[in-house]
């Protein structure tokens, strides 16, 4: 692999995505929604810049110009700057939501990343270690499977051997946002419908951190292993705490699995909201608090799930639900998406601190989250910051009021 290899830059893109590149009017309307731009002021991350550069690369490697003028070398610095920009993006999709021509950027950026990986230019920083960590330990953090969730499961939940309902904790939840996973399991137990889980050593990465950083090589194996294991347990509905996992399972697993999945994926907030509506679950205690809910990008823009978490929170007696200025499908990223949290840590902290600031200004008692990546960056952003707000996961909060 080499950055100047003669393959066209279009090889990872579908016809629809080439159409999207051509559709960009360079109007710049999406810029004001980009969280990375907001905290860095760096124009190179902006969608029109990324699209403009990538179109230039295509022209040089496969356009009319190459055909007529025998192509040309692409400036190595430009390639490197572009790679940094496309990996610094959190893939939050806010630009696509605001895009005046409807470009699906949350889907486009990962494919541009894939191309840079194929050319040996990406991924960046610690992202390079993800495949090795996943191969060795089953999770992108390189942590032992023993630490995954056995610490609370045995004492607090009854997990069935086989059931139609499955729960997938996900790596970020299991290692970096443990109270979330505990909250999920407590809520599921409270509903009473039997649910099953894979043992910690079998519950490996869903593949999202590899997919989003353009490293596809392990994906087929992971997907087949997980999908086969859940199928063997008779799972028909797989509940996840992480919106990225739900996206990955629903959108991409079928292609790596080679056929339709034998189950469907759901976010925990959907399942619990349904249980509350059907009176299979009830809230016993009141909570005299002002809560502000942050929409995770892959839940709101990725899956269109914005009302279920709000419905859950609005059912808590005494709780007052506040809104961020930017909410629902227009929400601002927490800063940790797209596997950028560890590599571009300063950006992630600065972006999440914008949410902390607004929550403080609105006098929220607690900032409610529903994604383990948001949860993980929240802790880091609060550390040493002069403004403080309590952060809680939605299921963690719910487990306080049963």
């Amino acid at each position: 692999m080499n950055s100047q290899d003669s393959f066209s830059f279009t090889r990872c893109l579908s016809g629809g995505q080439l159409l999207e590149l051509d559709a960009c009017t360079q109007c710049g309307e999406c810029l004001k929604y980009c969280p990375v731009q907001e905290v860095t002021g760096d124009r190179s991350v902006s969608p029109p810049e990324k699209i403009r550069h990538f179109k230039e690369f295509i022209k040089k490697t496969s356009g009319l110009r190459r055909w007529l003028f025998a192509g040309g070398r692409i400036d190595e610095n430009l390639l490197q700057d572009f790679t940094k920009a496309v990996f610094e993006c959190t893939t939050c999709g806010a630009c696509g939501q605001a895009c005046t021509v409807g470009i699906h950027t949350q889907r486009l950026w990962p494919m541009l990343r894939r191309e840079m990986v194929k050319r040996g230019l990406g991924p960046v920083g610690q992202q390079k270690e993800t495949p090795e960590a996943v191969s060795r330990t089953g999770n992108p953090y390189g942590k032992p499977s023993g630490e995954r969730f056995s610490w609370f499961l045995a004492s607090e939940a009854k997990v069935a051997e086989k059931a139609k309902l499955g729960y997938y904790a996900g790596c970020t939840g299991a290692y970096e946002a443990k109270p979330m996973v505990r909250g999920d399991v407590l809520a599921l137990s409270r509903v009473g419908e039997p649910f099953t889980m894979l043992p910690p050593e079998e519950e490996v990465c869903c593949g999202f951190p590899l997919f989003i950083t353009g490293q596809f090589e392990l994906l087929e194996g992971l997907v087949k292993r997980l999908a086969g294991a859940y199928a063997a347990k008779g799972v028909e509905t797989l509940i996840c705490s992480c919106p990225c996992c739900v996206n990955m399972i629903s959108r991409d697993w079928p292609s790596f699995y080679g056929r339709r999945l034998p189950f469907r994926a759901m976010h925990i907030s959907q399942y619990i909201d349904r249980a509350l509506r059907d009176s299979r679950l009830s809230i016993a205690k009141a909570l005299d608090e002002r809560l502000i809910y942050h929409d995770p990008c892959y839940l709101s823009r990725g899956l269109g799930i914005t009302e279920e978490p709000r419905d859950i929170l609005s059912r808590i007696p005494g709780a007052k639900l506040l809104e961020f200025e930017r909410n629902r499908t227009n929400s601002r990223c927490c800063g940790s998406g797209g596997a950028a949290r560890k590599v571009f840590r300063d950006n992630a902290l600065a972006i999440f601190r914008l949410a902390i600031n607004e929550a403080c200004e609105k006098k929220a008692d607690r900032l409610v989250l529903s994604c383990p990546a948001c949860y993980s960056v929240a802790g880091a952003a609060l550390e040493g910051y002069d403004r403080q707000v309590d952060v809680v996961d939605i299921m963690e909060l719910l487990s306080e009021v049963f």
Partner: protein
Amino acid sequence: MMAEGFLYFLAIAALLVYASFIIRTAVHLASWLKGPSPEKPGHGQSPGGGNKNIRAAALDVIFLRRLFRVNRVLWVGEWVFHVSFLLVLIRHLRYFLTPVPQFVWQMQSAGRAAGYVLPFSLLYIIIIKAAANRGRQMFAYNYFLLAGFFLISSLGALMTLYFYPDVVAVKEFMMFSLDPRALFSGALPESPLAGMSGEVPFLAHFLLALTILFYLPTHIFAAPFTIYKARRRDESMKGNFYPSP
């Protein structure tokens, strides 16, 4: 007075620009028709189409509803620009078609009025963008197009108001430039542009239009499709994307 050689040069330049436009459009069209990527992953869910989505997407395109959602101040200018530009384009069809279709004749007064509105709408857009961006986020290509259209439309309005070029000569020249056989036979149009009133503004207008056509953005054709795709995506996520069993 315009030399005969220059007239030929102009016609040949026009022909080359038209040809490059057609080739460029065809190449892009072929790339859009490329199937899914040979890479493994799906490229997003494939929600159903349906007449409802087509209708909604058509309204999204006609009323630039996606822009309306994010920037209403700019939307006013952009919508007026797009509508007046369309009317002006229809008015211009009389120079390219023989016989001129009835609807083109019927649209002449609307097109004339739109011709006066067009430069103002562009000026408004440029001011709004420059004010909003305060020099920070200038996208050169976008400004180049806006400035180009502004100059072309201003010259167009001036020709309608003050310079009155000979429309018969203009039409003959346009038909000549569209007909390679006539061009290469060496026969000049019967009423060449030479010496006609408004010769200079017309030439500037025409050359600028050729330049813009050469750099014409692909989004003109691509955007309606991406807007339709976005509408399908939005509709597919309404309510519960992954419903409970």
